């Protein structure tokens, strides 16, 4: 058990950043706590609780939808922009989050920073080309969400680097989307697979496509080869099936969360096909 000597609850981002720089590796950042509390590293001396920071908001702008990192899943459920933007995929993902208490406590930022394969928002956000604003050592910078899920930034986030905001670009606003979760029970946080699809369809032709998956893989991932199959074409069940198969080409390293890697290899193309058809208004086959 960690021997925490200091509990900080800063009221500004700069105050939080200052505390984090001072504590170096001895601090952890606490938002909702649902993923963190039972796994606080034993060397932790200071908990920096974000509860007083003004980071719980959703703001619609001309360039992007900005979501404060401390926005909870319940906030997403109650928010009109979450229902309106990108076919309501943020609302659907928040609704699928395990239980009432986790939805009340869990935050958008925490779901990215404490990245477990089955977290619901990373596949959604990478499908929407979202960026994350990160304050690191007093400097503020935007990074694609896809870049912060692994590597150096993933190690720093939640300890010395603070995620403050997620931005979803305005071109995602009108996209048709689907969020498909495969789990033994709907209320399970840990699920076999999550698939997200975002499509821009004009005159029956797919102009832009994004396909991502989570939980079946250790990190949420996009499938560019599958997306390319859709772009410039009319989406049919056959094309959707081809895209599902293309996503699997060369893909390895499936997780064993809830079901075996072999099962995931079989089920993922099916889920992708169904999600594509759901996103463009067709019935799942």
């Amino acid at each position, binding site marked *: 058990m960690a*021997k925490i*000597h200091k509990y900080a*609850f800063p009221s500004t981002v700069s105050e939080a950043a200052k505390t984090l720089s001072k504590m170096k590796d001895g601090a952890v950042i606490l938002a909702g706590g649902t993923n963190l509390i039972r796994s606080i590293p034993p060397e932790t001396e200071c908990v920096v609780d974000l509860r007083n920071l003004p980071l719980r908001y959703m703001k619609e702008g001309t360039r992007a939808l900005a979501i404060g990192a401390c926005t909870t899943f319940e906030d997403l459920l109650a928010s009109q922009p979450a229902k309106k933007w990108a076919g309501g995929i943020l609302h659907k993902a928040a609704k699928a989050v395990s239980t009432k208490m*986790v939805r009340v406590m869990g935050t958008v930022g925490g779901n990215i920073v404490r990245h477990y394969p089955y977290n619901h928002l990373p596949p959604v956000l990478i499908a929407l080309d979202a960026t994350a604003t990160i304050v690191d050592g007093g400097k503020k910078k935007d990074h694609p969400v896809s870049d912060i899920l692994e590597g150096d930034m993933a190690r720093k986030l939640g300890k010395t680097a603070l995620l403050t905001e997620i931005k979803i670009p305005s071109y995602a606003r009108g996209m048709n989307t689907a969020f498909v979760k495969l789990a033994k029970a709907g209320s399970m946080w840990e699920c076999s697979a999550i698939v997200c699809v975002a499509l821009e369809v004009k005159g029956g032709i797919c102009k832009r496509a994004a396909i991502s998956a989570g939980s079946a893989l250790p990190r949420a991932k996009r499938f560019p080869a599958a997306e390319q199959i859709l772009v410039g074409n009319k989406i049919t069940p056959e094309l959707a099936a081809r895209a599902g198969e293309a996503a699997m080409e060369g893909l390895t390293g499936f997780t064993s969360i809830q079901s075996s890697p072999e099962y995931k290899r079989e089920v993922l193309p099916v889920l992708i096909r169904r999600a594509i058809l759901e996103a463009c208004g067709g019935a799942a086959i």
Partner: protein
Amino acid sequence: MTAKKASPNAIESANGFFSITAEVNGRPLTLQVGEGEFLLDALRRHGLKGAKKGCETGDCGSCTILVDGQPMLSCLMLAVQAHGRKITTIEGLGTPRHPHPIQEAFVKAGAVQCGYCIPGMILATKALLDANPSPTEEEIRYGLDGNLCRCTGYVKQVEAVRDAARILKNAKSK
């Protein structure tokens, strides 16, 4: 030696304990809580044993309490997080002589069997009805989806929440 205050927005421990202040069941209290102690353990150590120890991983909901009116899992909170907050446990809702209408509704509907999940479920119901006084069955089931009951099939609890909603609504309109 008592715990010291580091700045207006931080507290530090002394001798392994934080001294926190919180409003617990309507009363302002100063509590000594351990450095890595969970809120569930601290509440029970201070005699509030209505919050139950179940899974301790946030899955079962038997440790549910209200924090600033919202249902939260006390097994997934550090005790020090209660500093400056309003905490309601089942002991703060009603008494054996004067139970809360939600408690009465649960008993009347036969929704209580072994009873282990009931404090959490009643507090989750309180939060649900505070936010939505007339929930549909779907909303009731969704609002209580974090409270597992291994005795029943949830039918009686849903009935109890409906009854409680009606009683509370009638009492409000009088």
